[in-house]
């Protein structure tokens, strides 16, 4: 194949007409007249070819969401990738610290306004991240499950939700009443969620009157309780289910309910005890979704290159009775609004997002009758 410019003799003559300055000017976008105008148009066209950021692949999306790399390859740390079995004991402290630090970073990184606006949502997001990693002790997982559901619009019958005010204090720290009584030191904090543990029945209700929101705060509070952080504005969380969905991890955790119920929790009261029976993540979802066949969908969203655009993509639902997806968006409240529905679509560009606004996105898989089959993680994003 012959290309333009391959002709050496011709070029040796032509080369003389290009000075370094002329080349630099052209490549910098100068707009000369004459026969160079075509080149200038080409240069402009090339620059325009850098459209919006492409949608990241599922693997990359998980990387961007968790920021946790493993030495095992491309996969970020998820319940599935990190844990080999339900009974496996993992030394809690180190992992705990790392994750809680990250989680705290997420939440603390948000401006006060954002915290207030998102209220429970943000807190939930932070906690879910940990849940996804499969390192939260059962009791906490329970709380996470509750919060996840709480922010999952369709499955939000919760009548007690009367007091959506939880974020009055705004700061997640205060929002969490129960967690405060953390007995152990910092290292212990994470498992601290003694609230749920101690009172299995109440579970997510460390704050009795508290609504979903309160529940969320409670759940996330422990991690937030640490030192302050200044960091990211974009918080992405992998669903507690991520790992499970991705690799049939669910199958590895035969006794989901156990973790949730009081007894199990009691086993992991102290932080020092190696908890992490990853059964938790999967479990949690189970209890709270109406679905008898809970399954995870991993959602990832990122601000597109253009203002006001958010690109979201998600993994396919594997539930047999899946009928369609609905992408929900909330700008702070517990209930989202459907911004997109599709039977099989796995991506969507939300062009209605407003700049400088923090949104929460969640994808849910609906059955034919409109009931929720399963849902994804909550992704909070600061647009754009």
């Amino acid at each position, binding site marked *: 194949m012959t*290309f*333009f*410019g391959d002709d050496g003799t011709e*070029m040796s003559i*032509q*080369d003389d007409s*290009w000075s*370094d300055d002329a*080349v*630099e000017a052209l*490549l*910098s976008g100068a707009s000369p007249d004459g*026969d160079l*105008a*075509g*080149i200038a*148009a*080409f240069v*402009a*066209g*090339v*620059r*325009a*070819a*850098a*459209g*919006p*950021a*492409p*949608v*990241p*692949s599922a*693997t*990359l999306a998980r*990387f*961007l*969401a*968790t*920021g*946790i*790399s493993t030495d095992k390859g*491309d996969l970020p740390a998820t319940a599935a990738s990190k844990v080999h079995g339900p009974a496996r004991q993992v030394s809690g402290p180190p992992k705990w610290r790392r994750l809680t630090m990250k989680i705290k970073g997420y939440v603390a*990184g948000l401006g006060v306004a954002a915290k207030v606006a998102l209220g429970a949502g943000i807190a939930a997001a932070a906690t879910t991240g940990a849940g996804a990693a499969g390192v939260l002790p059962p009791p906490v997982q329970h709380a996470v499950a509750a919060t996840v559901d709480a922010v999952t619009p369709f499955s939000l019958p919760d009548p007690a939700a009367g007091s959506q005010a939880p974020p009055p204090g705004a700061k997640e720290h205060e929002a969490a009443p129960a967690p405060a009584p953390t007995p152990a030191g910092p290292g212990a904090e994470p498992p601290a969620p003694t609230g749920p543990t101690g009172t299995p029945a109440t579970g997510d209700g460390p704050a009795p009157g508290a609504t979903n929101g309160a529940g969320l705060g409670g759940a996330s509070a422990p991690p937030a309780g640490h030192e302050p952080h200044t*960091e*990211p504005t*974009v918080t*992405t969380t992998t669903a507690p289910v991520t790992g499970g969905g991705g690799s049939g991890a669910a199958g590895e955790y035969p006794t989901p309910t156990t973790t949730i119920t009081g007894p199990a929790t009691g086993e992991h009261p102290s932080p020092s005890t190696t908890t992490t029976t990853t059964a938790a993540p999967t479990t949690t979802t189970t209890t709270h979704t109406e679905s008898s066949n809970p399954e995870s969908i991993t959602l990832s969203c*990122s*601000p597109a*290159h*253009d203002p006001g655009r958010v690109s979201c993509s998600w993994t396919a639902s594997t539930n047999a009775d899946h009928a369609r997806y609905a992408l929900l968006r909330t700008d702070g409240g517990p209930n989202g609004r459907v911004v*997109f*529905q*599709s*039977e099989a679509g*796995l*991506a*969507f*560009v939300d*062009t209605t997002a407003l700049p400088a606004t923090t949104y929460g996105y969640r994808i849910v898989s609906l059955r034919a009758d409109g009931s929720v089959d399963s849902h994804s993680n909550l992704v909070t994003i600061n647009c754009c």
Partner: protein
Amino acid sequence: MARRCPVSREDDDARAATVERAKAGDPAAWTELHRDLAPAVAGYLRLRGARDVDDLTSETFLGVFRNIGGFSGSPAQFRSWVFVVAHRRLQDDRRHRFRHPEEAVSPAADPDGPMPDGVVAGDVEHDALRSMGAAGVRALCERLAPDQGDVLILRILGDLTVDQVAEVVGKSPGAVKQLQRRGLDALRRMATTEGVPL
């Protein structure tokens, strides 16, 4: 050689800080870097005829993030490094295409692409204008000698200096200068003598 697009000291510092945070595993920093660089990387891959632009771009960033711990240098060097990774992925892609020509997809097919079912493309007018220009640009790129095209696109879209491009394509700065001259010359002749639509 001076950078064509000089960045302010503050910008440079901010970018350096972002790279450092990314090295420390901060997901927000990764997102930021991806957001900043992915459009240019995708544009480069697209104009150089990659088959699956989105996938290759993701592969590029996975490679970058996986190895970012070993990177040290300025933000400009980080940028060139990202393109080094992208260029290698592109070469792998080309080799694969060469060996499996039957899988080749017309470069024009994926740029703005078939998007998944039900996807809203956004500002239709804007997209149309952009894709019209892109078609002309792609037509010209396809007719340029491969190494000339690589060099020109890296210089323009990658916003890289001659030295940086030399690093990316593994040639000397002198060779890069020669290639860009020839490429520009070829473009001039195509545009003037053949009226290639732009």
